[in-house]
């Protein structure tokens, strides 16, 4: 047995994980990433390597929701292995070092491993007030992001704030909050992992893909991995049959609500939101928002705080929106419908603000495997 295998076996044993379970985890990861069966062995090998890739996790205008999501990694022991397989050299919420010593840890990595570490960014980055809306150790978030992400092998923008500006960038964007793409122009190998917060299952899958193949999975136009953001919520929703049958919740707690009918009329944004919540669900597959009776709020989409609100206003009626319509047609029409819904409910002001003051995230051509 090689030293590498030996280390992994020891780690697994100490965590009470049988090797069979670990390989099962790798197979699940391969399936989540839509990879062939043979990829599971490759993943197992990559995860068991001895030298741990370094990760620096930066928090700026954030709520730590993505950090908390990270701590909920759901396949218990296997997810911890993934944590241990990375060397998380900077993460303010969990690291033991503080103040100057914590900064030293971050700077040592940037200096000694330029182009050789992963950066994760949580939270938006304010450009206003010369950067004074967010400073760490006296340095602006903007300067830290440009320095750390600018020297990283790749950057993961986790959560909608880092990916698209998110809540701080919602109209009227008081602090000039930016996404990573806008704050660090030309940043290399940027992957956006939006949602509020991002589902840790997708982060885990993304990291394992990177470790295994030294590349990123194919991305959509917003630089989101297709394996997690390739289909709409509506397309995979467990309540879809009720939508097609015209069975809707009309009032909170009514017979339809109790029976699990479609939440479309209560404001569900599932038709215009692309994420895999219905498939992977949350907290170890325990549940998801629609599963507990509340509409989707569209949190994985750029500008959702302005474009998906009011949350309880349903998307406009779509002709022919029913069984047999393609999701692309429905999605496209429904997106147009959001604007109509604003106008119809006298909330043009917010919709207008969002159009005037928030530019869309620049769409860079997806590079696929970078």
């Amino acid at each position, binding site marked *: 047995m090689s030293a590498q295998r030996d280390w992994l076996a020891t780690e697994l044993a100490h965590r009470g994980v049988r090797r069979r379970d670990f390989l099962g985890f790798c197979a699940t990861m391969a399936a989540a990433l839509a990879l062939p069966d043979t990829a599971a062995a490759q993943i197992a090998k990559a995860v068991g390597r001895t030298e741990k890739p370094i990760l620096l996790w930066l928090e700026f205008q954030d709520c730590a929701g993505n950090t908390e999501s990270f701590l909920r990694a759901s396949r218990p022991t296997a997810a911890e292995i993934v944590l241990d397989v990375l060397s998380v050299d900077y993460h303010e919420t969990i690291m033991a070092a503080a103040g100057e010593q914590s900064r030293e840890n971050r700077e040592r990595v940037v200096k000694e491993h330029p182009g050789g570490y992963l950066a994760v960014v949580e939270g938006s980055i304010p450009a206003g007030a010369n950067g004074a809306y967010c400073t760490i150790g006296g*340095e602006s978030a903007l300067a830290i992001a440009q320095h750390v992400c600018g020297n990283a092998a790749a950057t993961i923008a986790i959560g909608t704030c880092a990916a698209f500006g998110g809540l701080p960038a919602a109209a009227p964007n008081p602090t*000039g909050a930016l996404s990573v793409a806008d704050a660090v122009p030309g940043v290399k190998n940027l992957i956006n992992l939006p949602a509020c917060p991002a589902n840790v299952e997708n982060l885990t899958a993304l990291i394992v893909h990177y470790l295994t193949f030294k590349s990123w999975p194919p991305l959509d136009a917003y630089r989101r991995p297709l394996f997690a953001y390739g289909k709409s919520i509506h397309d995979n929703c467990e309540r879809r049959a009720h939508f097609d049958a015209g069975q809707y919740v009309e009032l909170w707690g009514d017979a339809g609500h109790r029976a699990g009918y479609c939440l479309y009329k209560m404001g569900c944004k599932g038709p215009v939101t692309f994420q895999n919540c219905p498939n992977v669900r949350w907290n170890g597959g325990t549940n998801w*928002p629609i599963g507990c009776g509340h509409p989707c709020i569209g949190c994985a989409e750029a500008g959702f705080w302005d474009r998906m609100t009011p949350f309880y206003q349903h998307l406009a009626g779509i002709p022919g929106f029913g069984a047999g319509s393609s999701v692309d047609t429905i999605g496209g029409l429904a997106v147009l419908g959001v604007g109509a819904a604003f106008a119809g409910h006298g909330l043009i002001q917010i919709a207008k603000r969002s159009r005037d003051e928030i530019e869309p995230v620049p769409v860079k051509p997806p590079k696929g495997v970078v």
Partner: protein
Amino acid sequence: MARVVVDPVTRIEGHLRIEAEVDGGIVRDAWSSSTMFRGIEMILKGRDPRDAWVFTQRICGVCTTVHAIASIRAVENAIGAAPPPNARILRNLIIGAQAVQDHVVQFYHLHALDWVDIVSALSADPVKTSSLAQSISDWPLSSAKYFAGIRDRVKGFVDRGQLGPFANAYWGHPAYRLPPEANLLAVAHYLEALDWQREFIKLHAVLGGKNPHLQSFLVGGMATPVDPTSQAALNAGTIAQLKQLVAKARDFVVRVYIPDLLAIASFYKDWAGHGRGVGNYLVYGEYPDDDSAKPALFLPGGVIRARDLSKVEPFDPSKVTEYVAHSWYQYRQGDHAALHPFKGETQPNYSGPKPPYDRLDTEPESKYSWLKSPRYDDQPMEVGPLSRMLVAYASGHPRVKALVGAVLQTLNVGPEALFSTLGRVAARGIETQVLAEKLEDWVDALAANMASGELRIHDNSKWDPNTWPVDAMGAGFHEAPRGALGHWVSIHNGTIQNYQCIVPSTWNAGPRDAKNRRGPYEEALLGTPVADTKRPIEILRTVHSFDPCMACGVHVVDAKRHEIVRVRAV
């Protein structure tokens, strides 16, 4: 006199900077500064009040329920919506679970490494560790073999040479006082608690769809249907699931967390003499027991002044005000005013040094934080688990009295020990046990309602904004894990006209006020010993004892004259 700067203060939520003057190994003065600002209340203006909870919830992803709860209560108060009994019970369960999970995580993952030296654990004897573990608890994971495994695992981690999040900390600092075996025990439970928190919080996914950022709240009730005959609603299967989750939570708290807390505290009893703070304690109260306008509360509200436990004043919402004299905002009528949140106004006005900077300007007239300075009856107040336990203790809450008494007896200290860094740590543990024991009652109440056919979850009569008055104002009060939280909302023609939050970490971490009276962190740091100004672990101990949550603390209200930065994407 040396200026000690700790920035970032790590193992907290958000961005906190502490500057302290240290002379002769003692903190002589201190400044607490929040260094991040988002402007969420500005963003809320003009929006649908029924959406507000989703926005405010994102103030914090750690205490991920608290700003949702305060928001729906504020809007319900404004429009007169009356949530039915099931909504109250579900909210109590969600709030209680949040507090229990949050407190355990705070103890093990945010605070423990101020007291526990991981490197020392490497030299522990597993047999002695096992004896120690079994002497303080009957928790089954306590064999010598188990602790040998943990020790070898930590050793393997260290031997690989990549210490990751444990690198460059204050290991070996003389202020660490636990024997190697106690350190190893704590490291084992650090790892166990990481698993435990992830499993227990599935309770939030059951009742809220997901955690963080549960998604089942509604103005007027909850979105989670209750129906024992449906597979798409909370039913008997859910009751069974909840019962199992709360039983496991209680088990871990009573058999792991509390014994560890007492064992570790027994080595640090001198910390009952540090971190005294302002000595005034404010509690709004929490966990309504009935559905009346003024419900009985499981944990009572009240105010204690000057550490006088013989007297608890009732809380009066009209006595809450905020100063901006040392905050990066300005008031139209002058920065020395104190304004009630309904009349609150805030205009960001950064006057600190341009980044990058080495030192803040902390001269007597200077501003140095994005936090404002809340005051109650013009006095600084500490909020949080210590305040809640003191008010409950002084009000005669039977379970709190019993547990406080037991803890004081075990540590062989008097009640005055509570007013301290160690007192905050102990109070958080006591509250966790009180709540972990209480959760099952709410599960039973939910089951009883199901059995009686009480299935309502929402007050539909006020859902339509056309049923609201043209102008409405409301306040929502909540006890978050970190303390007293209030939201104030003004609604005009169905949209938000003004919104303000005063949150626990603003009370505790706020800067000096117009009369130059320090905030609770600043006051608590006075007199703290600092053995090595390059490694000020003692400062972290006192600051962490408050459980800082900085993203919560920063807010802004009045958008009338605010600075809007227009940013064009490039």
